[in-house]
């Protein structure tokens, strides 16, 4: 080995020495660095509490709050009640075209400390299939062969005092309502947006077969903060609540609550 070392060229020797020095340096650093992390001083603990405010909104059906992921029309006999002169306890087997069945859809502010502006979207459509009964699967699915405009949601003048129906967003399948004023924390809307459902009597003239189907309703409530509500609605929903049609109907979301 000594012979090999002696036979190295000058350049090789220099390179070897440099590498050896680097290796020694690394080893020294490894030994040194643990010693550099010893704490010598730390201050006392400071504790801070931050409470974030929560916004919450719930749908109400017939003045009762619908639980999260709950069902609308959970009790169909409650919907199909139609007292008649002969029978005040009458419950129809199916909805009779032309008759209005009571179904009050509204909104409640569920936050404890935050006012909000709200809107209600109701989707209505026909479905076909069979209801599951535990042993068989639920095969009901929306059908596009039946006309959703035959399902009519009742929006009375009294509802119109508290809600604006957004005509430009409403379609045969969807109705959208905006609550005109601030909904204070913990309170429900003063009057429901939708008060009833009715089947258009013109169903008797249509070609399609309505002898075995389901009437489906989906309701969604959305809320935004009161501060900068106009910007919030634009950002979250893409809707300009200052548009002419809303202002003319009495919608005013620039209040700060």
């Amino acid at each position: 080995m000594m012979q090999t070392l002696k036979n190295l060229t000058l350049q090789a020797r220099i390179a070897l020495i440099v590498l050896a020095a680097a290796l020694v340096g690394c080893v020294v650093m490894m030994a040194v660095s643990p010693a550099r992390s010893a704490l010598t001083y730390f201050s006392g603990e400071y504790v801070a509490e931050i409470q974030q405010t929560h916004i919450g909104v719930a749908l109400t059906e017939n003045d009762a709050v619908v639980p999260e992921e709950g069902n609308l029309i959970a009790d169909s006999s409650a919907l199909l009640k139609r007292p008649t002169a002969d029978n005040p306890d009458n419950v129809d087997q199916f909805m009779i075209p032309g008759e209005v069945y009571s179904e009050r859809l509204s909104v409640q502010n569920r936050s404890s400390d935050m006012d909000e502006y709200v809107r209600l979207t109701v989707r209505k459509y026909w479905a076909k299939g069979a209801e599951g009964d535990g042993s068989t699967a639920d095969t009901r699915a929306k059908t596009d062969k039946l006309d959703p405009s035959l399902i009519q949601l009742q929006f009375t003048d009294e509802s119109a005092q508290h809600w604006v129906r957004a005509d430009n967003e409403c379609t045969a399948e969807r109705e959208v309502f905006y609550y005109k004023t601030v909904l204070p924390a913990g309170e429900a809307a003063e009057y429901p947006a939708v008060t009833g459902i009715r089947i258009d009597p013109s169903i008797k003239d249509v070609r399609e077969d309505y002898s075995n189907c389901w009437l489906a309703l989906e309701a969604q409530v959305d809320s935004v903060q009161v501060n900068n509500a106009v910007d919030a609605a634009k950002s979250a929903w893409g809707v300009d609540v200052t548009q002419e049609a809303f202002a003319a109907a009495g919608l005013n979301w620039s209040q700060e609550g």
Partner: protein
Amino acid sequence: MAKKYLAKRGIAALVIAVALTMGTAVGTAFAYYTDTTQAKGMVSFSYNPNPPTTEVEEYKVDGQKTVAIKNTGEVDAMVRVKVFYPEFPEDWGVTISIEPGEEGAEWTQDVVGVDADGNPTPNSEGWLYWPHPVAPGKSTPAFTVKATLTNKDFNQPFDITVVQQCTSAKSFVEGQPLLGTFADGEKSLIMPAKDGE
């Protein structure tokens, strides 16, 4: 000249740095409090002001049961039939088969249903469909439930039961596969492939 080149690079770097800083500074302000909740439900609906009604017409021809379906209602109806009969072991010498007459050649089992996803479901229960609407007061062409005895010693009584169902012919269009919506959903004919397909 080297100085000018360096100065230009310095300025360019400064400009890029400022632009990036402004870009990152602007995007932080837009987070609004929002909430949403939803619920859905369905209620059963049926509207059939004038439902079709049909009944089975059974009679014997040459000792064999012959079946036709008669429309006893006031509107056109699409009908289907199912025949229940025992399946005897082969060596008993009794066979039962369904044989349509000349005019009844179009009685067909080549029908598919539709499940909730729109996938075709086969006619596993063996219903026979008449692929044309039956007018009020009229009957479908008949078919015979033929029982053939090859073993003269066979003397066990058995039943042949015929069940029929009907539905409105409103959605049926001649030439289109859809027959109608029976109790277990929409039924459509399996159309033969057209030439060239």
